[in-house]
């Protein structure tokens, strides 16, 4: 029923009640209400495959238009997070693996255990408390300063404005995924540093840097890429909480709003579809990445 309601512009109810009833009946026929569920499913599938995801409950907007901007936002956010996670975790993981059981390593180990165990919303709340409430340097919610303020800005200022609202979500997501990857990189590096070919490389008299970054690290990438799949799914899913806390207009927040208001089934279905697609595309990309990091693997 909610889908039928969403299919028809609700404002018509006030402005043109007769047309509203006609459209409502037409919507029931279009959506196949009353027919077997399996028929309804295929009708939905047909529409979806042709790019029609239905309309949102509030505002009667095409779902595809409604979710386009948040999706792009989330992808941007998560790409930034991935970038930061990579440039932090890889050097950290390698360093801890090389200096195994040193004070530095033990310190990082404790830090990562704690980091793995902290819920992301706790980190988010703490960072809001510090950066928004105490220091007052970063905004605690929203994805930009609002249309009124932005009208007076130049394009560059708008970009800065966007970035300013992204700082805290990116920070929180990065912190909460640092620990797991660091540990994994460390683990694989330790394994690989014990391999015979590393000993050979050292015996050849290669510089330690070359041994670690050229011989060991290339090989350590292979298992790391394997867990990337799960991790990327994890951050896309996990950013739901962070986006909701910061009221940052991304996929997670859109899904949250759709679930809370209504629920708005068209949007929910579309969002879940996109999430699954993201997961599959991520899997595919990583499979391709395998061939890059491991020349022995060939696709097809």
């Amino acid at each position: 029923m909610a889908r039928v309601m969403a299919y028809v512009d609700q404002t018509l109810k006030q402005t043109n009640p007769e047309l509203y009833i006609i459209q409502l009946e037409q919507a029931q026929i279009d959506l196949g209400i009353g027919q077997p569920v399996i028929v309804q499913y295929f009708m939905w599938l047909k529409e979806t495959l042709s790019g029609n995801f239905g309309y949102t409950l509030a505002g009667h907007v095409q779902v595809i238009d409604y979710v386009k901007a948040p999706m792009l936002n989330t992808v941007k956010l998560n790409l930034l997070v991935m970038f930061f996670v990579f440039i932090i975790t890889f050097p950290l993981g390698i360093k801890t693996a090389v200096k195994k059981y040193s004070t530095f390593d033990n310190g990082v180990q404790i830090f990562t255990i704690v980091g793995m165990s902290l819920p992301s919303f706790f980190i988010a709340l703490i960072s809001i408390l510090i950066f928004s409430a105490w220091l007052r340097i970063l905004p605690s919610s929203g994805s930009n300063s609002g249309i009124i303020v932005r009208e007076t800005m130049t394009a560059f200022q708008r970009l800065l404005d966007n970035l300013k609202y992204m700082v805290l979500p990116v920070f929180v997501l990065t912190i909460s995924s640092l620990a797991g990857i660091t540990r994994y990189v460390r683990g694989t590096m330790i394994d690989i540093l014990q391999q015979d070919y590393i000993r050979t490389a050292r015996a050849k008299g290669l510089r330690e840097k070359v041994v670690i970054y050229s011989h060991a690290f290339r090989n350590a990438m292979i298992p790391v890429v394997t867990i990337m799949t799960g991790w990327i799914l994890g951050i896309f899913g996990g950013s739901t909480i962070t986006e909701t806390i910061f009221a940052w207009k991304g996929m997670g927040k859109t899904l949250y709003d759709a679930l809370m208001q209504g629920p708005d089934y068209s949007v929910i279905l579309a969002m879940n579809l996109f999430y699954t697609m993201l997961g599959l595309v991520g899997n595919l990309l990583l499979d391709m990445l395998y061939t890059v990091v491991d020349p022995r693997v060939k696709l097809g």
Partner: protein
Amino acid sequence: MKKRNLFQNIKEILIVIGRAIKSAFVRGFLGNNKEMTIFEEEAVQSPLRVTAKKFFKNKMAIVGLTVFLGVLLFCFVGSIFIKADVFYINTTQGNTSPGFSLLDVPKGLKENGILDIAISSTYSMGIDKENNVYIWGIDVDHIAEEFPMGLAAPEDLAYGQAITTGLKCTRVWSGTNHFILEQMDGSLISFGVVTDTLSFGLTTIPTALQTKNALTQNVTINVVQEIIDDGGVLEVIAENQVTMVITNANKAYMWGNTSKRPYNIAKGLLGKNAVYAGFSRENITFLLDDGTIKIMGTGSLSSNTPTDQLTGIVQLVTTAGSAICLKDDGTIVAWGDNLSKELNFDPAIQGHVVKISKAAQGSDNFQHISAILDDGSVYSWGSETYGATDVPKSLRNTTEAVNIYSGFFQNFVTDEEGNLLGSWGLKGHLFGTDEYGRDVFARVINGGRISLTIGLVAVIISTTIGIIIGGISGFYGGKVDIFLMRFAEIVGSIPFFPIAMTLSVILNQTYPDFGPTERMVMIMLILGVLSWTGLAQLIRATILSEREKEFVVAAKALGVKSRAIIFKHIIPNVLTIIIINATLSYAGSLLTESGLSFLGFGVQLPYPSWGNMLSGAQEMEVIKSFWWRWVFPSIFLCIATISINIIGDAIRDAVDPRSKER
């Protein structure tokens, strides 16, 4: 039939685990720690035993295990003793910060002797024999919500102290959030939230009060001038945002938020002389100078009034729905709706009561009355919440009690000279209270029990599914393997949080009449059903390598059934992997449960869980000012997950043959 076999198999696995743990404890704690070489060790001890022994040698592991067991005990045993009343609502006690200073009478007041005490929601005011004013208690931070600009909060106690320093007063009365003080010259001043327009600070008594006279004409009254003209104040009665003054000429003026009881007092009291009054939910009750009662309004007090007994009354105390009158012969007459058990006093005190406590206003249904008996001892009855009626033994047996001051959940008793004989009632809250006045400590304990249980059951579900699917897939191989692994990949490729949120909402929509228990079961199922894939793939991979080993070939050659081979020969060998995975995913599922609950898709309020206790913290005000509402549950959540992760790590270290020790 098949199902029963499965359970038998699980039972066998549990027995194996149990034996391993038992032997580990025997080894770890009862000695037999003779050092052995690696080869001896491998020859004599099973891998599980070696693992357990190494685990218990790891200091971090012991610390983690101890802390985790501590949290477990704290939540499960604690929740037996400390029950959280999830439906308890008492906004007067809302957002109280942690602390136990509600009964801490200031030193100066104790030394100089107590003249008067008035108790408000979370703080009290006292006057000593030298007419100095003291204020103590816990900041009433819920006022901060009404003042988003931070005018009054959260330093209002310090603010109150600053305001009242230097004041010389003779009497004090309290409302829910405000005090009225009588100064030496007989004039009144007030402090706190006084009117419906909410002014916090030192406020004045109205000089232009709009009201109606006995002929229902609108008049403007200068209350300050009236008090001077009438020769001072007889009594002040205050409640939530409303104040009434009875002057020495027995005239009553009421100001503040009168919308709850919009009665024409002047008309009702025409020809009568009021000496005292009491507010109830819908009534105003007056005690007249001839010892009778006049009730205004149509609430619970106006029905079933024992009018024939209401003569010769010397003292009147009203609660939200009941009235208690003390007669001159020391007996008590009480009537009303009895919601706070105001009428359930011990009949033995009849005829012996000298004085009943001044007032017990505010906080509907959580009200109590205290009395001084003719032998100088103290008796208390009414709502037992927060020990408000638990009179200490010393006060029950004392013979010196003369004055008693009670209100909300606090009571103070003094003797003839104004020395404090004792106090009882609510001291404060260890972790503060949330917005409804519920004790955060009790909710942390009970929420912990719910969170830990949900996490545990979810892990058991996912581990069981993982073992079964991974085991079948790994052992049978072929088409079954391909089908099951593709299925696992499909389930695994759906991002967890969005689908869990969606499932939670859709299941709630489909079954709207689910009770809280069913909803918790639902969350367990969602968590369990979505998170088994990793373990299944891991088990499959391990079994693939295990099943080629000699002992499996031998078992096959002996004609052992394939199911028995899986569960009796292979699973025990992949047990360590299962234990590590289950431990780590227990921490994970605690985090996901709390994440879901935090967003409102998990355990539904008012039932507490560590996650949804934080959901109030989506507001800036809560994050900043009411830190105790989110810091304590998250600290417990973090401690639990950190210790579980340490345990999991230690098990992995112990299992891994390449770990430090070798």
